[in-house]
């Protein structure tokens, strides 16, 4: 077997030297370009990345070349008969050849990558070798085994290469299907299957099929080899996949049964579903930012899942192992997922799931979102009717300065995409924090008109614009005139916190008066701008005129100041908001407007309500009243119940009927 191994290695060792030669060539090119002997318009980081990816591509090609001829060359030239007449079992011959091929690939890859990594430090950084090296190894293993498989079945090297490419493509599609669709259908967990795990599960059946074809395929010239290879390949992959899916399903269930904490509870706008992060038992080790392991500080958990819970059925509609950001559609049927397992800090992937059938409505971010001019996706939300998806992006470039932040609005299927720039730093060299205050055209907030008919944006300087997304038109609804004495010279107005009324008649704006050069707020007022563009009017003034919340019927607007606690209430037809009599020392934790227009106030100690008559008081039910001591208010669900999550102790989601005082366990 050793003799055979040596023979195989010697037969193809030129490939290794070719790898070394290419490596030296890349290193030399890099040295010339990076020392600026050539004035090439190439950024150093781009050059690093280019060299790094070149190394990976050459490694892949070398893998295919090393394994393509292992068996096909023997069959094609006729030397296989000689080989098979040796006093070695076929499995040992196969093993010797496979090991020799693997040794070739490994030594070639080492000779290729290590010298270049030493010469080009950036290569290591750009490739994130520490992070991605296992993935590279796994994909090389897959390429090697697939080519080995094809080499056992075909007699010409070129046929082997073409067949390998086709089979790799088919397997790539299979992996995508298994991870993205089948895995979710069977396990109920999005992204539950690690791509690397699936690839590793495919490698053994492929190798086994190759071994069987060689061991039972006689001289590899008849159709007999196919009879062993294909059923083994297809059946093996199918069986391993099912076992893997079963194992994952069981493992995740096991992990889910040991939830220790839940956090980040978010309710769908209409209260039909809720998302939260469930955390399993603390991990003994955690990974640092420089990819090292250290003893856990208690912030890491063995399992961390984002759970979507259907509040009507009480079942987990979907579970996502890791994501950057999610948003439930208003009716709780669709889930937008931003970022994936491999996105890191620059999320580019976007998926939209239909939770009813666990089908993907949107399989990936549209091509327009992949353009370099649009930065990584940072935040996602839905329009009130679920007609539009809103994504916030940032393309600030620390290398060159400048860049912009924007929102991208599109249909959930990725069509009718439009970009609205929020902030722009056009001048290179100006850091974002330095740029604050230079322009007053920056958009501070935005909100939706009823029926998702339009999107309102508000600039820092107070320009209110209505974007009709369906036809792409934008019109200025209102903008402040030149300073007219309402504030003194040297002071600055800051418009923010846009809130469109549910009927679309008014847009509430918060206006802060800042002393020039200071960030301290001197004065605040709340303006109501009629949607028809007529003259706005002030409904409240003073530093307490803070957060605004419309009642569902749009007839009433609550203004809530937190320090000191203060509630003001404005009703349609009134000239100004009236103050609700409430203690000033309350510390408000949460608040929510009930379907009937009442305002629910959740403090650290008790729950209060502002009723339809504008009267402030504690909730009548003593059980409900004291709930804030143990629970945080998440929101009001579709049945009008207050959804609560435990502050401490075991993970718990409860729903409280505010009129009857009945409390129901929701999760787990």
């Amino acid at each position, binding site marked *: 077997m050793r003799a055979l191994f040596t023979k195989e290695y010697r037969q193809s060792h030129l490939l290794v030297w070719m790898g070394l030669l290419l490596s030296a060539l890349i290193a030399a090119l890099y040295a010339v370009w990076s020392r600026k002997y050539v004035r090439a318009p190439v950024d150093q980081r781009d050059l690093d990345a280019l060299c790094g990816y070149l190394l990976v591509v050459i490694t892949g090609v070398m893998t295919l070349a090393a394994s393509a001829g292992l068996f096909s060359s023997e069959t094609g030239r006729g*030397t296989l008969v000689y080989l098979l007449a040796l006093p070695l079992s076929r499995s040992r011959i196969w093993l010797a050849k496979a090991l020799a091929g693997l040794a070739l690939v490994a030594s070639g890859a080492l000779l290729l990558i290590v010298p270049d990594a030493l010469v080009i430090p950036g290569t290591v950084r750009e490739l994130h070798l520490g992070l991605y090296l296992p993935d590279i190894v796994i994909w090389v293993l897959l390429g090697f085994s697939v080519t080995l498989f094809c080499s056992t079945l075909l007699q010409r090297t070129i046929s082997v290469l073409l067949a390998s490419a086709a089979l790799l493509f088919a397997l790539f599609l299979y992996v995508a299907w298994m991870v993205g669709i089948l895995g979710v259908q069977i396990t109920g967990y999005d992204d539950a299957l690690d791509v690397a795990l699936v690839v590793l599960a495919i490698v053994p059946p492929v190798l086994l099929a190759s071994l069987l074809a060689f061991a039972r395929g006689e001289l590899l010239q008849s159709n007999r080899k196919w009879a062993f290879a294909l059923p083994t390949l297809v059946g093996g992959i199918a069986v391993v996949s099912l076992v893997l899916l079963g194992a994952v399903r069981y493992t995740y269930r096991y992990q889910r049964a040991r939830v220790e904490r839940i956090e980040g509870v978010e309710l769908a706008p209409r209260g039909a579903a809720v998302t939260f992060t469930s955390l399993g038992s603390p991990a003994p080790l955690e990974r640092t930012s420089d990819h090292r392991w250290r003893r856990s500080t208690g912030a890491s958990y063995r399992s961390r899942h984002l759970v979507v819970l259907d509040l009507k059925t009480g079942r987990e509609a979907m579970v996502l192992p890791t994501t950057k950001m999610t948003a439930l559609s208003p009716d709780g049927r669709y889930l937008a997922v931003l970022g994936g397992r491999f996105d890191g800090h620059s999320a580019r992937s976007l998926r939209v799931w239909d939770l009813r059938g666990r089908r993907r409505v949107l399989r990936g971010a549209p091509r327009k979102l992949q353009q370099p001019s649009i930065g990584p996706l940072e935040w996602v939300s839905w329009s009130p009717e679920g007609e539009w998806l809103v994504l916030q992006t940032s393309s600030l470039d620390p290398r060159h300065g400048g860049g912009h932040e924007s929102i991208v609005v599109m249909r959930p299927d990725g069509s009718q995409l439009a970009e609205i720039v929020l902030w722009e730093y056009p001048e290179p060299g100006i850091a974002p924090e330095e740029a604050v205050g230079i322009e007053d055209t920056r958009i501070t907030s935005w909100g939706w008109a009823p029926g998702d008919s339009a999107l309102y944006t508000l600039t820092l300087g107070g320009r209110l614009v209505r974007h009709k997304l369906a036809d792409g038109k934008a019109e200025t609804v209102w903008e402040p005139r030149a300073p007219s004495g309402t504030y003194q010279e040297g002071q600055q107005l800051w418009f923010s916190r846009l809130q469109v009324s549910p009927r679309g008649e008014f847009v509430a704006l918060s206006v802060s008066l800042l002393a020039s050069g200071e960030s301290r707020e001197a004065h605040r007022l709340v303006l109501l701008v009629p949607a028809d563009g007529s003259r706005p009017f002030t409904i409240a003034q003073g530093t307490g005129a803070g957060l605004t919340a419309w009642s569902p019927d749009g007839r009433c607007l609550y203004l809530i100041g937190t320090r000191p606690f203060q509630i003001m209430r404005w009703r349609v037809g009134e000239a100004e908001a009236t103050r609700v009599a409430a203690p000033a020392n309350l510390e408000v934790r949460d608040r929510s407007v009930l379907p009937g227009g009442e305002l629910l106030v959740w403090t650290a100690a008790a729950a209060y309500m502002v009723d339809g008559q504008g009267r402030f008081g504690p909730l009548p039910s003593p059980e409900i009243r004291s709930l804030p001591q143990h629970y945080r208010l998440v929101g009001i669900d579709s049945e009008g119940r207050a959804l609560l999550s435990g502050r401490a102790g075991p993970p718990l989601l409860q729903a409280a009927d505010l009129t009857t005082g009945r409390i129901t366990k929701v999760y787990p």
Partner: protein
Amino acid sequence: MSKNRCAIATHELTRRFGRKLALDRVSAHVPVGSIYGLMGPNGAGKTTFVRCLLNLINPTSGSATVLGHDVVRDSVAVRRRVGHVAALQPLWEWMTVREFASFMAGCYPRWNPETVSGILSRVGVEPHQRIQTLSRGQRTLASLAVAIGHEPELLLLDEALTGLDPISRREVLRNVIDVMHAEGRTVLITGQDIADMERICDHVGFLIRGQLFWESTLEELKARVKRLRVEHPDGAPAVPPGALRVERAARETQFTVSNFSPALVDSLSAPGLRVEVMDLGLEDIFVDLAQPQLNASGSAQVRA
């Protein structure tokens, strides 16, 4: 013949390639220490038979033992004790002859380099020569030299003498086959060079259309297959039983029989008839035996 005394023993060995029957219930027995010539026309199944013995291909049915090992179950043990050379067998072109020998040496538990180098020097193949620079005959000679490096108890030469010039062939016959025979080892030669076969073989087998229709010692073959020349002034005599071939002339008829015995001559003898018994060379025997088989659509086996 006892299996223990057979280097090769097959029992109804059958191999089918799709619809084609390459070996049809072949039951062959190659005695230990013999030089067995397996003859047959092109496509008779000789190479398939050899490949079955090495388990390079599996029999469809039947069984075979080589040196006491079942060829399917103990194929590695068989190959360890058997040397194999095939005609026009491609080799690894990039190797030198020495590297080739060294590679083969690493694959066998025992190896005698002197045997290999001795034969190579006698047939004029330099060890440092690359295989790609060797002629077709030299490659066969190199293969042959390397095939006996592990001192096999059985040597399978599958048309290995084909393509060799007369001098090389004589060297092979003298230095390899005669030496092996002298040491009591067994050689199975397949091919169509009947003159060489007749010179060196002591056992022969005829394979036609996958069927082994004759197997015996060469001596027995020659003793049983004879040509009878009958001169008859009047009517032609009746065809004796077992006649393979009948040639009639005006006053003379020749019969080739496969079951010659003095009694047969007696049965033909009659007043006025003169019977002459003629010995046949192996080539004539092969042609006379094979022709009826090739002409017939089906074939009945003729066994010794």
